[in-house]
């Protein structure tokens, strides 16, 4: 028992961090927000080359096995970099097809997902933690939809709506029609597992977003001077940032434990704390940057605007709290 990332795990995260650090992700996000998906697609291919997407598919289909700890560490880095696109959803599709165990379907889609040839997106029934909207269906090659009745289809994505985060687009897949890929209790079971993975990876992304917001804010308050002193020397500023760090530091081990078990309660706890910590980090960043933090032109905005949608995606705080107590509810 050694509750720390192994050297290999740390090296993998460092590799991703370095790749993303030099990939000018803010420009990729701004292009993505304008509907130009090219740079985002290109970055996806480079991420695939690190083996990131292989971590959500079995070896039989070019994957590395379903390795939640490694994948989670990778998604922290995606969050930290502000990576746009249906990253969680593509991985979730990969998990769904892996869990379903339908060889034809797996062969049809998994190798492409592992190789980073395209994005995919999906919606799941409410009971699996999903909402009604598919993320970035306009940028995805495939939009999967699992219905409450346990039907898995390739769905028409429907009208595209804007989010308060311009790097996110929402659409509500058509309820009927589209190619029926599978149906029955096995689909429902696989959807439940998939929902947990989507929640876990969103938690990881939140943690990275929160850490990026904190790091940028710490940098800012060290150099911004008012009343003849860096504002980071004021106790009110210090204490807000200390609280931000505290929330992130106590969220991280929950994420690790959730990645190890992928148990519903653990995943919900991780999502709750990572999501809230990131949103609180955003509010603190906004507060301490003053007016400049409120502008879209400062890159800070790219993370600020992500924090709240990610806090709610794949499980709101309220849903996660209910899940935490569910296993022990009598009856």
């Amino acid at each position, binding site marked *: 028992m050694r509750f720390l990332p192994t050297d290999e795990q740390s090296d993998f995260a460092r590799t991703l961090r370095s790749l993303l650090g030099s990939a000018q992700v803010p420009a990729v996000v701004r292009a993505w927000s304008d509907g130009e998906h090219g740079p985002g697609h290109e970055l996806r291919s480079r991420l695939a080359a690190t083996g990131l997407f292989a971590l959500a598919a079995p070896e039989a289909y070019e994957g590395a096995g379903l390795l939640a700890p490694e994948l989670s560490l990778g998604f922290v880095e995606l969050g930290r970099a502000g990576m746009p696109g249906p990253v969680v959803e593509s991985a979730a599709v990969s998990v769904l097809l892996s869990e379903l165990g339908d060889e034809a379907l797996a062969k049809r889609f998994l190798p492409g997902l592992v190789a980073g040839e395209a994005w995919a997106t999906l919606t799941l029934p409410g009971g699996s933690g999903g909402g009604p909207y598919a993320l970035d269906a306009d940028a995805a090659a495939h939009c999967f939809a699992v219905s409450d009745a346990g039907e898995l289809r390739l769905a028409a994505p429907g009208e595209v709506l804007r989010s308060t985060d311009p790097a996110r687009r929402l659409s509500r897949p058509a309820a009927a029609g589209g190619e029926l890929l599978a149906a029955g209790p096995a689909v429902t079971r696989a959807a439940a597992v998939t929902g947990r993975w989507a929640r876990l990876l969103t938690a990881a992304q939140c943690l990275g977003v929160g850490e990026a917001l904190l790091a940028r804010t710490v940098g800012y308050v060290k150099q911004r001077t008012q009343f003849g002193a860096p504002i980071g020397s004021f106790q009110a500023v210090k204490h807000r940032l200390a609280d931000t760090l505290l929330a992130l530091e106590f969220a991280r081990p929950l994420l690790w434990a959730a990645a190890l078990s992928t148990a519903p309660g653990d995943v919900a706890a991780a999502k709750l704390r990572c999501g809230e910590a990131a949103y609180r980090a955003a509010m603190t960043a906004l507060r301490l940057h003053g*007016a400049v933090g409120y502008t879209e*032109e400062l890159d800070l905005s790219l993370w600020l605007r992500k924090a709240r949608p990610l806090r709610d995606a794949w499980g709101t705080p309220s849903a996660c709290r209910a899940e935490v107590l569910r296993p022990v509810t009598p009856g």
Partner: protein
Amino acid sequence: MDLTETAETAAFRAEARAWLADHVPSSPLPSLETREGFAAHRAWEARLHADRWSVVSWPEEYGGRGVDLVHWLVFEEEYWAAGAPGRVSQNGISLLAPTLLDHATAEQRARVLPPMASGEVIWAQAWSEPEAGSDLASLTSRAVRTEGGWLLSGQKTWSSRAAFADRAFGIFRTGPDTPKPHQGLTYLMFDLRAPGVTVRPIGRLDGKPAFAEIFLDEVFVPDQDVIGEPGQGWRIAMSTTGNERGLTLRSPGRFLAAAGRLTALWHAQGEPADTALRDRVADAVVGARAYELFTWAAAARFAAGGAAGAESSLNKVFWSEYDIALHETALDLLGADAERADGEWAEPWIFSLAGPVYAGTNEIQRDIIAERLLGLPKGRR
């Protein structure tokens, strides 16, 4: 201690309500932070002005009705309850006009106030500079004496409304070598379309150009646009921050209306058994009421001749944090729809987020509360 409305006030309320029922646009105007919306809101100001509803508390000669604070509060309650548009003239009306009424010449008041009341001239504030935010006294933009006036140079920023407004007001350094940073400042008004002015709109978090940078390069301002004595700008600017402005910056009516909309949303979307959300809706209802009553009490103190002071800091911290909590509750009620940019709560939520920073950060306001109201020793700042 009394909260009953006089017959006269009730009649005023009824008149306002009736007018608003007849005139408030049936569908919302486009956002006032867009060119199209700005024009629509300017037209709405003219409509208000035509029936003397744009500046009810001003003297009649400038387009008002000469009513007191109580009537203003009543008007605001009716205004926001009716779902009427945001006020594009707010900067001029609540920041510049009180200063003009206290410190300007009769000529200036007669020249500046009526077109402000009608929306013909819309004002932007030009207080902050890149290096002077919370520490406003450290500003460096300067006004240099020239024949018949002054030449402004420097940079202002975070000027709300400046992207589309007509004129702006602010303080400038006219005596650069004073021993204290608050000295040697002068209060001036200037034209945003004058030669030497460059306005660079800045996109807010939602991309709308809600504020702008203003670059000034020897911009001529005639003497008639100096308010009060040159060199007295700081004193003049500060003298109106402690007065009723603390009460009129964000009227209780706005929050009563918002709490009403939140309650309606809760009835429409909320799970009645979800006490976690119920409690937050109740807090919003109670908070709006508390803010309203606090304002009534302050109005009574003013009417009794009491001076306003650091209470405006209490007020500022309260409404700005209240406003965020209210909008966060609405988003939580909306669930997956919370992030839809076209939702009716999205822009107000973004707007609310600026509250704690806007008009004196809440950190500074808490320092003021502690030092001036509680008498705690001044720390390093």
